């Protein structure tokens, strides 16, 4: 763990504190979750029936409201019938940490029940590819367009009003159209990621470009730099560290579109796993899958942040970011 943290510049000197903070920032929510799950007096609004006693409609394993359970127990006592037995429990929608941990483990270690069905890691890999291609395709157009719009005011006035408008439109609503054009497999899913990312990307990168010190551009122009050279020799080097950080944030943004994107066309990837398990109320599996997405997202961002520090050692903001 220490070596790992050190690699990411989190374990040295003044930064020793950071290392602790990182741990604490995860430990706190987990502790709250554990407390809510294991300390019955905090929440536990339900009772898990362990023996039905004389109550005709109770079944073992059934979750009942606390008041309802008390009411039935009182009735049984009056009628002199066997009392129902049960213990406090949370609603099914909030599984306990150990249940999720077990689901997490079994998801990776048990072969899928159905022959030929993908393993969880194969589903995950499929999802990662969707994100990757959606993000790459969006960036191929979005990054250059953002830089140009940020450099040339005329282009910004021409493109940005429409982009501002379009970025409010719900990307998933284009799902049916995407299927009609791109088929039922990965095409429409990638398209939704692109639609969800692209418009934000252009605006954010244009803004970043605009923040470049105007005097630098002024000076370059005075010295006769024009057109492509102005972009590649002055603007791009000037904004590169900020651009890199924008892209990191946008990649995270792309992930948030994954679940809706994967519901379009054939069911695939991690979304298939989540929706299928949720339909049958296996919420331990659902939370395990959600946490996996978090780990992949956070992990890749940590890596990219570390890479940023290597690539742009002069940029102090990378050290903080």
């Amino acid at each position: 763990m220490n070596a790992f943290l050190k690699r990411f510049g989190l374990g040295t000197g003044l930064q020793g504190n950071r290392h602790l903070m990182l741990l604490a920032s995860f430990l706190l929510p987990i502790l709250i979750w554990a407390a809510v799950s294991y300390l019955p007096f905090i929440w536990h609004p339900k009772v898990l029936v362990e023996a039905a006693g004389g109550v005709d409609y109770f079944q073992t394993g059934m979750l009942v409201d606390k008041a309802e359970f008390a009411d039935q127990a009182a009735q049984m006592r009056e009628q002199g019938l066997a009392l129902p037995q049960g213990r406090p429990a949370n609603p099914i929608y909030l599984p306990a940490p150990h249940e999720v941990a077990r689901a997490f483990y079994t998801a990776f270690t048990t072969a899928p029940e159905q022959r030929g069905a993908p393993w969880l890691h194969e589903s995950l890999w499929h999802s990662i590819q969707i994100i990757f291609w959606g993000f790459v395709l969006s960036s191929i157009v979005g990054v250059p367009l953002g830089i140009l719009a940020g450099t040339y005011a005329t282009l910004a006035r021409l493109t940005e009003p429409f982009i501002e408008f379009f970025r409010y439109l719900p990307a998933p609503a284009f799902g049916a159209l995407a299927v009609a054009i791109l088929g039922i497999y990965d095409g429409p899913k990638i398209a939704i990621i692109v639609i969800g990312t692209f418009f934000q990307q252009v605006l954010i990168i244009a803004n970043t470009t605009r923040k470049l010190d105007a005097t630098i551009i002024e000076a370059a122009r005075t010295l006769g730099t024009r057109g492509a050279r102005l972009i590649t020799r002055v603007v791009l080097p000037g904004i590169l560290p900020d651009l890199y950080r924008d892209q990191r944030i946008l990649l995270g943004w792309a992930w948030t579109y994954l679940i809706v994107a994967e519901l379009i066309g054939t069911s695939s990837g991690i979304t298939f796993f989540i929706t299928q398990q949720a339909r049958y109320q296996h919420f331990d599996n659902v939370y395990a899958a959600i946490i996996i997405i978090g780990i992949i997202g956070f992990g890749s961002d940590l890596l990219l942040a570390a890479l940023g520090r290597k690539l742009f050692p002069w940029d102090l903001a990378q050290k903080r970011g």
Partner: protein
Amino acid sequence: MLTHKPILVTLKRALVRLLAPAILAAGALSAQAAAPLKVGYSDWPGWVAWQVALDKGWFKEAGVDVKFEWFDYSASLDAFAAGKLDVVGVTNGDALVTGSGGGKSRIFLVTDYSAGNDQIIAKPGIKSIKDLKGKKIAVEEGLVDHLLVVTALKKAGLKASDVKFVNAKTNELPQVFTAPDIAAIGVWQPIASEAIKAVPGAKAIYTSADEPGLIYDTFAAQPGVAKARKEELKKFIKVWDRVVAYIKDPATRPDALKIMAARSGVSPQEYEVFVNGTHLLNSEDAKKVFTKGPGLDSLYGSTENVNKFNVANKVYPKAENVDAYLDPSFALGK
């Protein structure tokens, strides 16, 4: 400068990836007969049943080339309407809804009717549909279980206006049901079981078993496919008969349940409940179902019934021509 080459390579691969489906689609058009029959199916016991045939390789034995794709139900209808699927699993009512938007289809196979899987679940104290008068019922409006509630009310001598409908997403109905002012919900399995667990003492007071044939589950083909690829669809139906026999035979039933449960991601015991709520139909049963008649025992009567319901609930503006959707030539051998 060093980064140029990888970017170009990436770009090229991305383009190939994007264009490949289009090229394949173009190729498929020119050689349609050779392309496998593309079938979309989703999580309903009567359709998950196909998994048995897929696992056992029965399509190959029957000499028909199929490609089954697993979908979320509404996504499969979108893909069918966009012409990306040859055949899709759909209820007779939803075939009309999809068709009203332009995605016409021909129903050539009836897999089952719901016999208990669709339920009206009421809070404790409500014993029959009559007790629902003046109360609030939550359903997803326009879908099959809205139809089930309206039909049940009519049978009990009530009008739709005698109750108050609350519109909610099917998946969220168990949570909606816990609200104190909601007296009942109309919902299908597996969500129905979860709703019963969510409100202790709640019971199904009316189910699709009381109304056999209200909702038929079918496979529908693109009209062009139903005509041009008739021989393949006939073999498709033969495989279906084999599947039904395998599920019904007590000797092979456990194996069938195991395969189906795996497809849905639940245990076989859990899944058996849902299979029991589904009345599977083979091609012998289909002869009766595809015979014209006004009652729910005929696909014609049933589809006309849901057609009226859809118009009354403004799902689409004017009635669809039911005969155009039903292709009895497969079942009746004409």
